């Protein structure tokens, strides 16, 4: 959690006299509800049988998305992925091998749930909710509250009091931008430059 943003928000809230919704840092991975496959040793071996492999990959994708959502996973490198509890089950003493991790990541990418952050494919970001889906949620809030033709700063959308109860509250700024870009494509929004940063206008 960036202290800069917190201070700013704190000051703003102090002025408003309202309590800022606390973002609780997620506790250790142990509180996460692992699926049955996670304790099944063959889950960590890329299955040669086509049909079996399909089921296996589907399970891996679902797990990766759920884990990334729960843990609010930031961008990761392949190295970090290999050692992460997601792909390495210490209790079972099994790790998904690097080549298999690549296959899972590619599957996520094909489904629109993963983005490579560099040309050499060394770091990536798992998007448990696709940018288009976030965009839809944001636009729903905008139109429900009659806020079309309004301009917002990115900060207001993510950390503003008005969005405190929305799912996209606290969203990663990079993710927000992708969501707004998706809306832009649909001509429902336009990303603009303001004095002290960026903002968006909804149509």
């Amino acid at each position: 959690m960036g202290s800069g943003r917190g201070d700013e928000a704190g000051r703003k809230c102090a002025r408003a006299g309202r309590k800022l919704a606390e973002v609780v840092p997620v506790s250790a991975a142990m509180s996460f509800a692992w699926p049955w496959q996670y304790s099944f040793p063959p889950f960590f071996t890329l299955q040669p049988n086509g049909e079996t492999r399909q089921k296996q990959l589907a399970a891996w994708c679902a797990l990766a998305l759920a884990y990334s959502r729960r843990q609010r996973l930031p961008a990761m490198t392949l190295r970090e992925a290999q050692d992460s509890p997601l792909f390495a089950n210490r209790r079972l003493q099994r790790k998904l091998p690097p080549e298999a991790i690549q296959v899972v990541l590619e599957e996520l990418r094909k489904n629109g749930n993963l983005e490579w952050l560099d040309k050499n494919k060394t770091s990536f970001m798992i998007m448990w909710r696709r940018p288009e889906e976030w965009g839809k949620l944001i636009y729903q809030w905008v139109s429900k509250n009659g806020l079309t033709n309004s301009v917002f700063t990115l900060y207001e959308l993510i950390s503003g009091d008005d969005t405190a109860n929305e799912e996209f509250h606290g969203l990663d700024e990079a993710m927000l931008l992708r969501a707004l870009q998706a809306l832009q494509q649909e001509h429902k929004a336009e990303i603009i430059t303001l004095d002290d940063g960026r903002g968006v206008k909804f149509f």
Partner: protein
Amino acid sequence: MDRFSWTSGLLELGETLVLQQRGVRLYDGEDKVKFDSGVLLLSTHRLIWRDQKNHECCIAIPLSQVVFIEEQAAGIGKSAKIVAHLHPASPNKEPGPFQSSKYSYIKLSFKEHGQIEFFRRFSEEITQRRWENMPAGQTIQVNKDPQAGRIRAVGIVGIERKLEAKRKETDKNISEAFEDLSKLMEKAKEMVELSKSIANKIKEKQGDITEDETIRFKSYLLSMGIANPVTRETHGSGTHYHMQLAKQLAGMLQTPLEERGGIMSLTEVYCLVNRARGLELLSPEDLVNACKMLEPLKLPLRLQIFDSGVMVIELQSHNEEEMVASALETVSEKGSLTADEFAKLVGMSVLLAKERLLLAEKMGHLCRDDSVEGLRFYPNLFLTQS
């Protein structure tokens, strides 16, 4: 610089020294190399460079490698140079100081002048191509510098040269040894031609030679590996011999197969059969060819080849797919099994046990856990559990 080879510096028979120049530095393309101060010798056949400080260090390049040469005038602080553009190195070139080079040209830098005369004579030699008329032979002593003449085996260069000489020697020995074998092969060819011609004569003179003699002769042909030319099968590898053999095998293997659960690997069959025959042993090839005939001849056994290439003989009544169902039961009971554990439980060889587990995996009944602990098979919960 990768076209150069180590040399003793001795001129070969038929090779004549044309010109030499001290104070020459070598460049690999644009890069300086460690050969910075040496004597450059031009002969009718080669361009030789010898280090002025260490006479042992001597490299040469055949003039035939040179495509063309050009002069590079001297500049401020730079000596005059000759640029020699080269053909690619030949694959059987003698070892030299560089394995590879990104340049296809070298530069000769004349720090103590002499470049004009050298260029003139160099051009002449390349134009005249005297090396083509006088193929170089054994080495002879050069009277100019007696010290550099001896090939002394010192340092890595010496070791390299010794190894090269040894390799050549070994190569020569092997070629000589196989020379005899090639003569034998020629004779064998003649033998085969001879027997074929006799066989044909027999065919023509069918009436004159008795049935008995013909059969005897045909069996001699068979033992030499020539199939009977009269009754050759039209279908691929089927020969009379293999067909007879297949029938024999069917009789011989019935009981052992039943004892082993209806399936045996081909290597087990080979051992069993040859132990039984005692003297007239079967070659692996003959066994395989005979087994290939089992199914076409509608015998109670058949040859099966798994995806991995493993070959087995099984009873016609044996159904591997059924066996897979019982394998799944066994694995489920125990939670998981390796091929070893499964083989012990069921009482079959590890090879066949593994094949059965792999077949079960292929059919989707089992899945695998491959780790440092080994390869283990589990019931395929991916498909059975939602």
